[in-house]
């Protein structure tokens, strides 16, 4: 260094720095070995950088965070790990052992001890000879916590101890003068160690300054609490591989490749990708959905409903169990019968819905909403395992075993009758809301005659590996009927035309079956989950929000979902809100927009005109009507 022209000053310290927007020079003074006082003789060195060495400090943080005590070591002038509370041991530099030999030896001993503690006989081995540091090669530390100056520390020029929070020696003295003695209090008064380095650079110095000021040993002053994290944790380590295609599982149905090839746009439903609509060349979403809707109403449409949750229930107590979970009359269901079913939370609110089919005396099949599948399975298992372990009932998820293909439209029966099958699809032999098993186009199927569209419809369950083949057979056989694949958007329009709710869209966890007008589904002569909550005064209020349909008076206006509804325009705020729009679509078969809404005392308002408060400030008059817009008698699904 000297040869390179660098001045080296022995027995000196930097006592001051000059410069306005940066370091311009430092002031060097000589200091006696006892560090009691500076000896004057200021020398100025021009420079633009001042670097300080803080010596070695063990990273005792993990030890401390694990409940271990910290002890001051005078010889090494640092805190080192003391007694442990958990089964851990500090070795090497974090134990205050800074030489390589010591690090290797301590690591070896700790490893051997850990192996023994785990019940293994350690295999002896030797550590490499580091041997670079003969004992005593390093002279003992001579701590210098602050430069002693003639004037009182409170009058010193700025002597920074925390380089992130600009805490100075004077600040620490000020804290003591204000009466703070405890290191934790001084920390909070001065902000010492509060920076993003959490005191890694300046805390030891600051505490030692405090000790000097209090005229106590550092050991007695102690240290502040070490809190995790030692260093900021990056998002990268937290995310790990869970980025891009591995961000979250993308669940695809067995027919996904067909939908892709058909040009479908997809919608994310839970983790599933579902076909949203199938635009043809030059078609927008509106046109595509209108075409798909009309196909279902006039002839034949086909949908992939495989994502529905599916559960098989077996056991002698299946009826008892299901009657406690669902609200409808389960015992009265004949074999082969299907029922729409809802389940309530203990608060009486609608939790999930689906179709229940009775496949045998002790054998049922349930469907759940796509998003609710896992939740419902957990809910059922919870009741079985924790509350009713006396019931002999077994549940098995078959969501992935079956793919579900829906054929909807007036031509659905003709299509199926024209195929190779041992199932009698005749009107009398396969009535609405029943289920049949058999063979169709050479594969075993379960066929449910249920309808979420209000049309004649069959939901065909087929083993997933065979679903693409069966789908293609339907497409080929259905060509003569103009068979049209439809997605979730068309499904929504068709069901809204019929006033069928979607749990989670038209309900939000605060809606009872009474609010939805489902009184008929509620068994009167037995108990079920949530029943008692339905008789709470709040659930009986006549002004509760109830499901209704909305039509724009004479207009063509489509109301955005979520639109707030009010009695009349104007009025001083806060304007009382009657409810909100839950579903809103253009109905291609009716030729005008329709909407479903939850409206306070909605059923009593039928025929009334209320107002939709739009975001642009306008108020649109709308008429409250029945939520069933299409085929109110349900004749089409019964044909």
């Amino acid at each position, binding site marked *: 260094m000297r040869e390179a022209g660098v001045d080296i000053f022995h027995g000196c310290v930097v006592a001051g720095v000059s410069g306005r927007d940066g370091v311009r020079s430092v002031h060097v003074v000589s200091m006696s070995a006892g560090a009691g006082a500076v000896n004057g003789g200021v020398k100025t060195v021009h420079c633009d950088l001042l670097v300080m060495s803080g010596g070695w400090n063990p990273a005792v943080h993990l030890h401390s965070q694990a409940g271990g005590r910290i002890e001051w070591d005078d010889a090494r002038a640092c805190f080192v790990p003391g007694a442990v509370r958990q089964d851990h041991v500090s070795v090497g530099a974090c134990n205050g052992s800074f030489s390589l030999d010591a690090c290797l030896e301590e690591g070896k001993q700790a490893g051997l001890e850990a192996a023994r503690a785990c019940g293994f006989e350690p295999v002896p081995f030797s550590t490499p000879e580091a041997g670079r540091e003969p004992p005593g090669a390093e002279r003992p530390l001579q701590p210098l916590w602050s430069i002693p100056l003639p004037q009182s520390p409170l009058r010193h020029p700025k002597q920074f101890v925390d380089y992130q929070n600009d805490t100075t020696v004077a600040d620490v003295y000020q804290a003591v003068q204000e009466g703070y003695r405890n290191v934790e209090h001084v920390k909070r008064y001065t902000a010492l160690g509060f920076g993003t380095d959490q005191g890694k650079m300046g805390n030891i110095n600051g505490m030692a300054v405090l000790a000097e000021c209090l005229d106590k040993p550092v050991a007695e002053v102690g240290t502040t609490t070490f809190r995790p994290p030692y260093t900021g944790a990056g998002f990268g380590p937290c995310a790990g591989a869970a980025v891009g295609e591995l961000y979250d599982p993308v669940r695809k149905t067995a027919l996904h490749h067909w939908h892709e090839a058909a040009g479908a746009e997809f919608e994310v439903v839970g983790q599933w990708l579902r076909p949203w609509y199938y635009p043809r060349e030059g078609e927008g979403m509106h046109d595509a959905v209108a075409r798909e809707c009309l196909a279902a109403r006039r002839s034949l449409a086909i949908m992939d409903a495989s994502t529905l949750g599916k559960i098989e229930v077996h*056991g002698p107590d299946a009826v008892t169990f299901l009657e406690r979970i669902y609200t409808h009359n389960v015992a009265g269901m004949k074999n082969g019968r299907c029922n729409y079913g809802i389940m309530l939370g203990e608060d009486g609110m609608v939790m999930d819905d689906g179709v229940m089919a009775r496949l045998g005396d002790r054998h049922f099949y349930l469907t759940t909403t796509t998003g609710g599948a896992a939740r419902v399975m957990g809910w059922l298992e919870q009741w079985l395992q924790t509350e009713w372990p006396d019931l002999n009932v077994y549940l098995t998820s078959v969501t992935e075993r079956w793919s579900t293909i829906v054929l909807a439209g007036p031509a659905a029966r003709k299509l199926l009758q024209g195929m190779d099958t041992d199932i009698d699809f005749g009107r009398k032999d396969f009535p609405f809301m029943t289920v049949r098993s058999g063979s169709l186009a050479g594969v075993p199927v379960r066929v449910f005659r249920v309808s979420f569209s209000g049309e004649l419809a069959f939901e065909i369950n087929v083993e997933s590996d065979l679903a693409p083949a069966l789908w293609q057979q339907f497409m080929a056989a259905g060509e003569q009927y103009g068979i049209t694949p439809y997605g979730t958007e068309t499904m929504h329009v068709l069901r809204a035309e019929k006033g069928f709710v979607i749990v989670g869209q038209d309900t939000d966890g605060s809606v009872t079956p009474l609010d939805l007008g489902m009184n008929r589904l509620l068994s009167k002569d037995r108990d079920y989950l949530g029943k008692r909550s339905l008789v709470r005064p709040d659930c009986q209020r006549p002004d509760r929000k109830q499901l209704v349909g909305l039509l724009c008076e004479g207009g063509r206006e489509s109301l955005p979902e979520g639109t707030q509804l009010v009695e009349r325009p104007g009025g001083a705020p806060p304007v009382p809100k009657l409810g909100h729009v839950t579903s809103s679509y253009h109905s291609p078969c009716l030729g005008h927009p329709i909407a479903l809404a939850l409206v306070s005392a909605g059923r009593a308002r039928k025929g009334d005109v209320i107002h939709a408060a739009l975001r642009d400030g306008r108020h649109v008059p709308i008429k409250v009507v029945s939520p069933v817009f299409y085929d109110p008698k349900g004749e089409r699904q019964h044909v």
Partner: protein
Amino acid sequence: MSDGLYRRHALASFLEGETGNGPENTAADLEVRPDYGYLNLRGEPNSERFMQTVQKTLEQPLPAEAGAFTSGQHTIYRLGPDEWLVASELGTENETAGRLAENLAGQCYSLVDVTGGQIMMRLRGPRAREVLARGCTLDLHPRAFKAGRCAQTTLAKTSMLIALADDAPTFDIIVRRSFAEYAARWLRHSGASIHSRVTPVFTGAGGNPVR
């Protein structure tokens, strides 16, 4: 089956896109295995009659311990105290189910054909344990998880049934159908993270996932 019918494996599209490119070191081979029918069987393990009937019908012992499986004509995994998964050659499960139902008539049990709902992959190779351990909270160390053991556990963001067939080690991994693509992608990525290749290969008859 009549003409025009074919089976399409859940990973058919995914396997089409497989190029086999990646790091040169092979950590483990990932075989996508199609050829199983699956039956989910539930019943009372303390019922001698039930256990005897099943074992006699399947001509194979049911694993008595938790987290074990038995091999033979079927592979039978114990999923829980009262639940087993019976994997058989694809196409034989119907007949097996029929015999079980006949012999178990009048007893309290549940037998559900879940074929098509699960996908089996076989991960085999010197670093298979490492590949799995990166996404599995279970202790896979040979001391803790020996050949003949199985467990339902996590695989990154999905779940799996994992069974250790031998000490190669060979892990049989059964995931739910719609999570198979995610699991295969994840295993491939996990291999790449230790600079090794995990290449999904279809090992079904004819090597074609659509047949």
